[in-house]
């Protein structure tokens, strides 16, 4: 019996914005090998501080670089050890568990070929798979799909779902048909966005600044007092930091909770689609909010909340995927990294290299892949950024080739043109 894909109601589509885009074919080559691979791409927009997510605690220059604001194995809160050299942000217990189980690989000092510092342009390069911004109307994921020979549409009626959809992100735009699905919940305006707007108003319109500030404070008080309804009981994420649950009454929402919920719900829903026998096999989601210029809060603030939300999203994929988790790779990437040092406002500015994650049951994990560039003054790019030593395209090419079975020639020509220097990295997945 053919199960119909959830066709989003018109209203959902019109009102929503966070969107999963997916390809509903089974790649023929992989199928011939008796595999049914799933690939989910997370784009983290805003530039994730890779050093705050995965810290080189074993680097003798680390403490000097970040001081108290850097992760350490001593804490507080204590970073989660990965190997002798790297440690994971304590907000990510699920990723740590997956890493220990051999289902997560961390790539460090990685970057796309983009070397400037504009978000839009950086995202453009990251998603287009080209070497310069504004050069393509299609994304690498779509071109990879277009090169695959499908073993038939997984759902003969699935094409119905292709027609609708609001705006497709660049990474999946292109010739291969994509369907879209919109999660029921919208990403809320981030606290950071409110801060930026407030800052803009302070410079241009004090009256509006005053109103926005007042509203924000009122909202905060309402939140503190649990006045905002409805207050749904939150399922405890596996292994939350113990002190957090102890310190807060059970019904009191933790800061950043809307974001956490949004991440987990959209990722979980995406996974449930990908898990279905008649569901899509390849999808992409994006999560915003990583541009931590001020008060970054790597261990107990904004970034910590974001990483926690990302951790929840990964856990939601794992559980939503069910048995298909064993055929899944979740690839997490961001447009560039951030400055190695903390800036004058306890944040970090736009940088270069950062981390990428490969998570999933089929990932050959438990490894941090890094040709570590070092953190000495002379090691840093322009004296400020972590120097990129791994080309993100090498990772992506490796995953596309070995997991999804994209043809190597297509990878070198249409998917990632001008990437000869970034040879597909082997051994990233168990095949």
């Amino acid at each position, binding site marked *: 019996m053919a199960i119909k894909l959830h066709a989003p109601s018109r209203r959902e589509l019109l009102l929503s914005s966070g969107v999963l885009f997916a390809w509903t074919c089974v790649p023929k080559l992989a199928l011939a090998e008796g595999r049914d691979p799933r690939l989910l791409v997370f784009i983290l927009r*805003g530039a994730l501080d890779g050093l705050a997510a995965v810290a080189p605690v074993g680097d003798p220059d680390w403490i000097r670089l970040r001081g108290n604001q850097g992760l350490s194995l001593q804490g507080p809160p204590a970073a989660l050890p990965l190997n002798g050299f790297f440690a994971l942000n304590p907000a990510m217990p699920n990723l740590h568990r997956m890493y220990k189980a051999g289902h997560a690989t961390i790539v460090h000092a990685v970057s796309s070929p983009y070397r400037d510092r504009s978000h839009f342009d950086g995202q453009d390069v990251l998603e287009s798979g080209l070497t310069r911004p504004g050069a393509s109307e299609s994304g690498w994921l779509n071109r990879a799909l277009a090169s695959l020979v499908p073993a038939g549409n997984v759902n003969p009626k699935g094409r119905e779902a292709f027609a609708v959809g609001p705006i497709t992100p*660049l990474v999946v735009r292109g010739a291969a048909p994509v369907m879209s699905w919109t999660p029921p919940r919208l990403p809320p305006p981030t606290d950071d966005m409110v801060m930026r707007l407030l800052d803009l108003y302070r410079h*241009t319109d004090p009256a509006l600044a005053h109103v926005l500030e007042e509203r924000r404070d009122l909202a905060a008080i309402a939140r503190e007092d649990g006045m905002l309804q409805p207050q749904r009981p939150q399922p405890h994420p596996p292994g939350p930091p113990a002190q957090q649950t102890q310190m807060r009454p059970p019904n009191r929402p933790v800061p950043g909770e809307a974001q956490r919920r949004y991440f987990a719900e959209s990722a979980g829903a995406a996974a449930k689609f990908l898990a279905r026998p008649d569901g899509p096999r390849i999808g992409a989601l994006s999560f915003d909010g990583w541009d931590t210029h001020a008060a970054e809060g790597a261990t107990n603030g904004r970034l910590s909340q974001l990483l926690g939300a990302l951790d929840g999203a990964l856990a939601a994929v794992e559980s939503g995927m069910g048995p298909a988790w064993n055929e899944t790779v979740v690839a997490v990437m961001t447009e560039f990294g951030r400055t190695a040092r903390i800036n004058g406002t306890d944040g970090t500015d736009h940088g270069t290299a950062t981390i990428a994650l490969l998570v999933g049951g089929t990932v050959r994990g438990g490894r941090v892949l890094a040709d570590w560039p070092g953190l000495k003054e002379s090691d840093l790019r322009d004296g400020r950024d972590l120097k990129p030593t791994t080309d993100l395209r090498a990772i992506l090419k490796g995953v596309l080739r070995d997991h999804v079975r994209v043809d190597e020639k297509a990878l070198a020509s249409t998917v990632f043109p001008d990437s000869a220097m970034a040879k597909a990295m082997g051994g990233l997945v168990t095949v």
Partner: protein
Amino acid sequence: MSANPSLDAALALHRFGFGPRNNAISKLAADPRGALLAELDHPGAALIQDPNLLDTGEIARAVFDFRQERKAVRFAQQADQMMTANANATPPAKPPGPGLPQQIYLAEAKAHFDRALDAETGFVERLVWFWSNHFCVSADKVHPYVGAFEREAIRPHVLGHFADMLLAVESHPAMLLYLDNAHSMGPDSIAGHNQHKGINENLAREIMELHTLGVRTGYSQADVTNFANVISGWSIFPPRDQENGGEFNFNARMHEPGPQTVAGHTYAGMGFDQGAAVLLDLARNPATAKHIATKLARHFVADDPPPQLVEALRASFVKSDGDLRELARTLLLSPEAWAAPRSKLKRPGEWLVATARATGVRSPDVRPLLNAQNMLGEPLWRPPAPKGFDDVNAAWMDGIAQRLEIANQVAHRVSPADDPRALVDTALGPLASAETRQAVARAETRPEAVAMLLMSAEFQRR
């Protein structure tokens, strides 16, 4: 007007129109004021001629039939239940989808918004919105008629004469029902005698206080009462009437006979003409000219509008005998209307339309727009009181945080192919401050950049 034509073009679009779209700013730069004036040259510019939209009488009869039918179905189901004596039977399910009144409301709302979204500059449509709010009715009370009211009583006269609009409005079934005149009967009328009922002053009072003279302009309670007597019998045919149901009916049996004195004039006339004569005099009353001039200037220019501008509008209104096209021309030709700082916060509906025009984010379904307007406290055709929605900043400032939610939603639907930095030029052009440009350029994502633009003071104020 300033020395910078493209600045004037951007101002023209934001202050007098519904905001720029595509390359409107550069298109208008040759002659911004001329472009606005040109919109006034099409006498039927404000009309909506859509064969799918019913007129008020048709609506009344269709809704009557619809309700009868539903009643019959409900009745049959209840009878059915009683026959089967099944106490546990689930209550009959409501038919899915919006009922006929709401379908009509949605179709009217769509026509209303489409006009604003598609307008060249939107000046005429802004006038429609202004007058529609000045002479408001509310969907809370006359749900299916609100759109037809705007089409039938407001739009035909937006570039015509105030006295004609006044007569069309006050004799429109939606207004007669909204302000309770449909059942008002003179105590000495035949119906009043028979039923021992009398007048309802509501409409008479609001005509003088809100629609014409303005509050505290010297009319007395006796004037209100007498005027109510004058318009007693201004009613509608009952909707069950297959021929004329729902249409205006001067019911002589409900009309208070005899002469009445209103604002110092005695009206001997008989029947409907008596009321029409009072309305004409009210339209020509100097207090009305002052009232309208002040409101119009407040709406387009400033909460406390420049006195010279108000005076120019007042004089124009008097001199032209309430020619609303002349009044609009006077507004555009007044230097004060252009020179005033951009202090007015766009009302929610204006801002939503401007947002859709600037970003191109638009859906065939009108409901997202309606929902957004509800959320921002300006539900379409549903003002909190006969006074209409407030037209001063203080009423709308608090909604700015909610606007961020909406800006964020819209921004996520903007095509990623649109560079937000280019969108600044489309939406604001030379009005954009360096700070806003920087905030847009530095935003972390395209959607955030677009949201910053839509939330910027330059885009919020006009």
